[in-house]
């Protein structure tokens, strides 16, 4: 384990930014935190997390795939991909780090999504432990330890210092580069912080939330539950929950006619939208209730079923905070899953 003083972070950032683009959570003018490309003077936000997760860096909201040029009646196909640059995402929370496990399962499975894979290869995650989790946090429900985040490097922030520990080769290589700015240290302070965090986690209002009722094999049990209707009653069908979710990975591929050619691009899609997976025969899920059920069944039942029990929710709580009508996965788990427990 290595450490550096909090005051020296600007130097550390400068060192990292020499070889790669560095993105870190920065407080904006509106008081909201967002990942921002580092430039001299930008400081690491104290807030718990960013409004949007770091998913964009690996799986951007829109991404051009290929371009077609037309001249007269001829079509030329152009691969517009350029080699990805190296980049570092700093200050990622444990939940968001975990989200890449979920995304990897989707995109790195054969056939590999080469766009995503390339970015994963070029990206380094520096994960930060959470010192002040909030009421919407429920990562522990999914077995995530906010005090010991995964990632290429884990860091812990105290009042005056930042502690560093590499978890992967990529991480170790980066930490090596920072050796001049950091010093070797004991794990004492970090252990103390871990304990404190663990105590705080127990006090969270959602600490008792359990996934026991969910997982593989529950499809039949919940699919026709009458509660779906009532839960989805007020759902607007907007895409907020899916677009702030660090694990949602659905996308649509569309063509954009530029007038001189066609750009084929993909963009995030939301299973809450009425035109999601619309095909020539129409949308397979006709009502909002069906679409609503799909989203939560996918996260809590279908995904674990196909991925060795891994849930595709990491408990980051973004959807809890952002849903315009405050309907969310926690309410769903309690209502649908609560039945089994009762």
């Amino acid at each position, binding site marked *: 384990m290595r450490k550096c003083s909090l005051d020296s972070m600007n130097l550390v950032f400068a060192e990292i930014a020499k070889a790669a683009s560095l993105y870190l959570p920065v407080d904006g003018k509106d008081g909201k935190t967002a990942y921002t490309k580092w430039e001299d003077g930008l400081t690491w936000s104290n807030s718990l997390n960013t409004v949007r997760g770091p998913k964009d860096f690996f799986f951007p*909201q829109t991404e051009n795939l290929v371009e077609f040029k037309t001249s007269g009646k001829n079509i030329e196909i152009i691969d517009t991909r350029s080699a990805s640059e190296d980049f570092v995402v700093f200050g990622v929370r444990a939940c968001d780090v975990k989200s890449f496990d979920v995304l990897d399962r989707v995109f790195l499975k054969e056939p590999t999504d080469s766009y995503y894979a390339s970015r994963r290869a070029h990206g380094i995650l520096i994960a930060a432990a959470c010192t002040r989790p909030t009421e919407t946090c429920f990562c522990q429900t999914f077995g995530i330890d906010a005090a010991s985040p995964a990632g290429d490097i884990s860091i812990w922030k105290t009042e005056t210092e930042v502690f560093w520990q590499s978890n992967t080769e990529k991480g170790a290589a980066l930490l090596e580069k920072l050796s001049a700015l950091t010093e070797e240290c004991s794990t004492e302070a970090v252990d103390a912080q871990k304990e404190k965090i663990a105590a705080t986690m127990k006090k969270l*209002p959602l600490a008792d939330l359990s996934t026991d009722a969910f997982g593989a094999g529950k499809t039949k049990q919940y699919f026709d539950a009458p509660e779906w209707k009532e839960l989805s009653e007020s759902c607007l069908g907007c895409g*907020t929950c899916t677009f702030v979710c660090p694990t949602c990975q659905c996308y649509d591929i569309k063509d954009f006619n530029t007038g001189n050619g066609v750009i084929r691009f993909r963009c995030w899609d939301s299973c809450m939208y009425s035109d999601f997976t619309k095909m020539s025969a129409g949308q397979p899920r006709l009502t909002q209730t069906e679409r609503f059920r799909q989203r939560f069944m996918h996260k809590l039942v279908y995904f674990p079923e196909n991925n060795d029990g891994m849930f595709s929710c990491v408990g980051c709580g973004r959807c809890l905070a952002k849903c315009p009508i405050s309907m969310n996965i926690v309410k769903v788990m309690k209502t649908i899953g609560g039945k089994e427990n009762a």
Partner: protein
Amino acid sequence: MQKITRDQLIEKAASLLANGTVSCVLGWQKGEFDYDITPAVFETEDELKANFVWNDFCGANFSKYLVSKTKKCEGKILVFLKPCDTYSFNQLLTEHRFDREKVYAVGIPCEGMADIAKVKAIAGDGISAIDCSGEKLAVTTIYEDAPVMIDAKDVLAERCVNCKSKKHVAYDELIGEDGDVIDSARFDEVAKIEAMTPDERFAFWQNELSRCIRCNACRDICPACTCEKCVFGNPNSSLENKSPANSFEEKMFHIIRAFHVAGRCTDCGECSRVCPQHIPLHLLNRKFIKDIDSFYGEYQAGAEVGSRAPLVNYTTDDLEPGEVFERGDN
């Protein structure tokens, strides 16, 4: 603190359910925390007693739900309307979006709703309870032993700070006292932007709109956006897109969205409330309202049922599009 209590509303709803006036109630349902309140349909007194809430976080405007709910519900629906909700209610009636006969509207006074983001800015993270029943909001967090006391005025939602009316313009029955239309300062921020140079305005909006993730929450919450098929979801409209690919599409979406509700927007402020990226969308809508007021005379959408919206109306001596800018230079 709200002047009307939860018990009063439950009593009213229960009696209307009991005497058969209504068959269901659109109301606010309690959430995981004290602030994440969900609109819900209640059918019995027991349901109401168990889950109905009324506090400083009941911002949701039910008017839009009436469009679909009146088609589905057998009997009449009881809906509680805050003063600002009544404008949306009337606007939807003007556009024949639901059957008035199927609704029993109870107007309730509103002292303004709280913005949870503002509460968190003061009380911090880890909120475990909020008590709205006293003079001040008592906010308990897992990090502090004593609750933080907050003056409701300090955490009013933006739209409530600039509340335009405490008067109910539609109801079958009113609980509590009716208020008046308020001379609010809601256009000040628009005027501030207008006073910027074009470069500053461009930079301002470029920065705001670049955050848009096109989740459509602004559209889907908007009580004026009730199209059976939205142009942004219609592949034949040439506007359809699922995400903003660049700054043009961000602007396009928000210009068209605001234009579609121009003259119909009641300025309820829901769009800005729900934006996960905190884009001040109401400043686009208010720009249209301000322009309409100054070009064509004051007009409040939803103030009365059947009024002719400014964009479906004209006078022979309206100002010319070119004169719009001459006025601005004065």
